[in-house]
C-alpha cells in the first residue's frame, strides 16, 4: 500500500512538472518490467526498445494512468501489449523466422511448444537451462500467467483483471503449469 501511495505521489509530482520524479519511478520498476520483457522476447535489444516504449507512454501521457489503480499493474499491462504488438510486427515483416534461431527465439517459441522439441532440450544442459527448457514446454497461456505472477508480483486477482479472465481460469492455468514443470523436471532426474 505504501509503495502504491509513493508511486501515485511520484506520478502526481511528474504531472506537476518534476521530471526527476519520473526517474525515481523508472528506477523503482525497471528491473521487473525489463526482466519480463527480456523473458518474453529473448532479445536484449527488443526488450530495451519495449522498455523505452512503456515508460515513454507514461512520459507523454501520464493521464493514461489512473492514480487509483496500481502503477505496477498499469506498467505490466502496457508492457504486455507492447510485446504482443512487437510479435505481430515481427511476424508481419517476416524478418524473424517463426521458429527463431539459437540466439534469437522467434514468436513461435513463445506460443505453445509441442514435444518432443523442448523435451529433448532437457538433456545435457545446466540446471538453469533445464528449467528454461521445462518452461518452454508450457503453453503460451500458462507461461503468460506464470511470468506475470513472477515478475509483476501482482496477485492472481489483479492478473485476472488485467487479462480480463475469471480468477478460476488464471489459477487453473497456473496449476497446470506447476504440474507440467514438475513432470518435465522429474522426468529429467529419473
Amino acid at each position, binding site marked *: 500500500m505504501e509503495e502504491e501511495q509513493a508511486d501515485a505521489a511520484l506520478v502526481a509530482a511528474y504531472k506537476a*512538472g518534476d*521530471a526527476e520524479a519520473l526517474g525515481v519511478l523508472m528506477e523503482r520498476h525497471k528491473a521487473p518490467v525489463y526482466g519480463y520483457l527480456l523473458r518474453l522476447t529473448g532479445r536484449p535489444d527488443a526488450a530495451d526498445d519495449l522498455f*523505452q516504449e512503456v515508460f*515513454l507512454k507514461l*512520459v507523454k501521457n501520464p493521464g493514461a494512468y489512473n492514480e487509483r489503480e496500481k502503477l505496477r499493474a498499469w506498467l505490466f499491462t502496457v508492457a504486455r501489449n507492447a510485446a504482443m504488438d512487437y510479435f505481430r510486427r515481427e511476424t508481419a515483416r517476416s524478418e524473424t523466422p517463426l521458429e527463431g534461431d539459437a540466439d534469437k527465439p522467434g514468436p513461435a517459441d513463445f506460443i505453445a511448444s509441442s514435444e518432443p522439441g523442448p523435451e529433448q532440450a532437457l538433456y545435457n544442459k545446466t540446471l538453469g537451462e533445464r528449467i528454461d527448457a521445462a518452461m518452454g514446454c508450457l503453453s503460451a497461456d500458462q507461461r503468460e500467467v506464470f511470468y506475470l505472477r513472477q*515478475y509483476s508480483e501482482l496477485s492472481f486477482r489483479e492478473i485476472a483483471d488485467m487479462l480480463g479472465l475469471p480468477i478460476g481460469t488464471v489459477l487453473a492455468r497456473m496449476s497446470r503449469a*506447476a*504440474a507440467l*514443470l*514438475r513432470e518435465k523436471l522429474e522426468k529429467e532426474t529419473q
Partner: protein
Amino acid sequence: MNCEYGEKLILYFYGEAGEALRAETESHLAACGVCRASLAALKQAGDRLSVPQAGPSRAAQAAVMVAARAQAAKRRGFGFSWRPALLSGALSAVMGVVFAVSARNSAADLAWNSGIDAKLDSVEYSVYQAESDLAQASGDWEYGYSVLEDERSMVEV
C-alpha cells in the same frame, strides 16, 4: 498437479491463501509427495526467473529521461503563462468591486467635493455670457441693417 489441491497449492505457494487454507494445505502437503514435488518445481522455475538481469541499457533510460525533462519543461511553461493572467484577472475584479462600492454610496458627494459642480456652473455662466454677447451683436447688426435699408429707400424716392 494430479490432485484436487492444484489451485489451493498455487494460492498457498504465492502467499495468497487465508489462514485456514494455509493450515489445510500444510496438512495436505505432509501427506502428498506429488504436491511437494510441484511446489519444488515451481520454486526452481521461480528462482530461475528471479536471477538478476543486466537491466535496460543506459541509452534507453537516458532517452526516457530526455523526453521526461522536455515534457516537464513544457508543462511548467504552460503553467507560467496562466499564472500571471489569473493574477491580473483577480486584481481587476477586486478593483472593479472597490470602485463599484464607492461609486454606489457617494457619487454625488464625490462630485460635490471634487469642485466639479462649481466648475460646471462657471462653464454654464460663460456659455450664457457668450450667448448674451452674441444676441447683443446680432441685435446691433440688425438695427444697422434696417437703418441702411431706410436710407436706401429715401434715396430711391
